[in-house]
């Protein structure tokens, strides 16, 4: 069994990517931390032939769903895809339109896009995380990408510059 340090080094960025896609950059950090703390606790019992990335994304998915529900219950909308470029380093990398477009996707489509296109999980694995079968997961991802193209892509089409 690999030292957990290797698991964090190898999969930390991908888990951050899916947490951000699911929750936006601000709440993603709490979800990442909770995901890896839960994973560390359960790690000694993980089966040796387990797909570690799928296992981590499954935990992250549950954390993201919990976090989104808690956020929905909060009286004041906080963490709603905020103008948080300042906490994320290079502001020129901040693409608020894209984050907003991803955040506006239905949860299931957002999850399918994140787990397949951002984490690289096959649709069979995506389906086992979000429910349904592989075909349904594929359709959810395709619908999500289609919607993203409608709501976001036109802003950058043909733009070689100024796409902030």
């Amino acid at each position, binding site marked *: 069994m690999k*030292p957990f340090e290797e698991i964090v080094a190898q999969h930390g960025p991908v888990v951050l990517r899916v947490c951000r896609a699911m929750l936006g950059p601000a709440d993603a950090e709490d979800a990442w931390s909770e995901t890896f703390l839960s994973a560390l606790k359960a790690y000694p019992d993980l089966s040796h032939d387990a797909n570690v990335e799928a296992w981590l994304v499954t935990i992250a998915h549950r954390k993201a769903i919990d976090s989104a529900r808690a956020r929905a219950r909060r009286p004041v909308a906080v963490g709603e895809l905020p103008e948080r470029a300042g906490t994320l380093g290079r502001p020129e990398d901040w693409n608020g339109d894209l984050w907003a477009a991803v955040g506006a996707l239905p949860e299931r489509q957002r999850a399918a896009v994140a787990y397949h*296109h951002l984490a690289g999980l096959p649709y069979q694995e995506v389906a086992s995380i979000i429910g349904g079968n592989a075909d349904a997961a594929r359709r959810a991802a395709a619908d999500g990408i289609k919607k993203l193209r409608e709501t976001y892509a036109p802003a950058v089409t043909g733009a070689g510059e100024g796409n902030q």
Partner: protein
Amino acid sequence: MITSEPEIEALLAPLTMDEDRVTARLHARLAAAAERDGVLDIAYRTLDTPVGTLLLAVTGQGLVKVAYGRQDHDQVLAELASAVSPRILRVPRRLDEASRQLGEYFEGRRTLFELPLDLRLASGFRRSVLAVLPGIGYGHTWSYAQVAAAAGNPRAVRAAGSACGANPLPIVVPCHRVVRSDGSPGGYVGGADVKRTLLGLESAA
């Protein structure tokens, strides 16, 4: 970005910014939470010294492993994962005191290590050998036969030698002070050159 369709990859690329830096920051937060919840079983760091880069590992009980570069640190961590626990994170601050004392030792300013030790990686006669080694004073040497006798089995000279060779805590538990009966240094987990370097350091101080 892992997706295979180039157009989708381009569409989603801005979502992957700055991940390594943020992950590094979150790693420190994870280490703190793991300690708080008592699930950080082993913390480790590497330390640059005059005898190369050492790996230092600590459990809740104390220093559990010191390894030379030639021992292959990845391999050593894998062995710790199976022998002790895979709940292992790189947390250098947990080894601040051990690092400080080793630094003083290499500067000739420390003749005795005062650190809690976790000897779980040695058992039986090997453990008995480790228990007698700190009795060999700084700058002094014993023969393998003397060590075998002090550990309770005068005829187990070869076993004393292999116990020194398997010492999980070299330098801190001073197996380098055990030499052949003819006075030549003999083998060492860090290599014969390192053994000579340590003995030279101690005789010069």
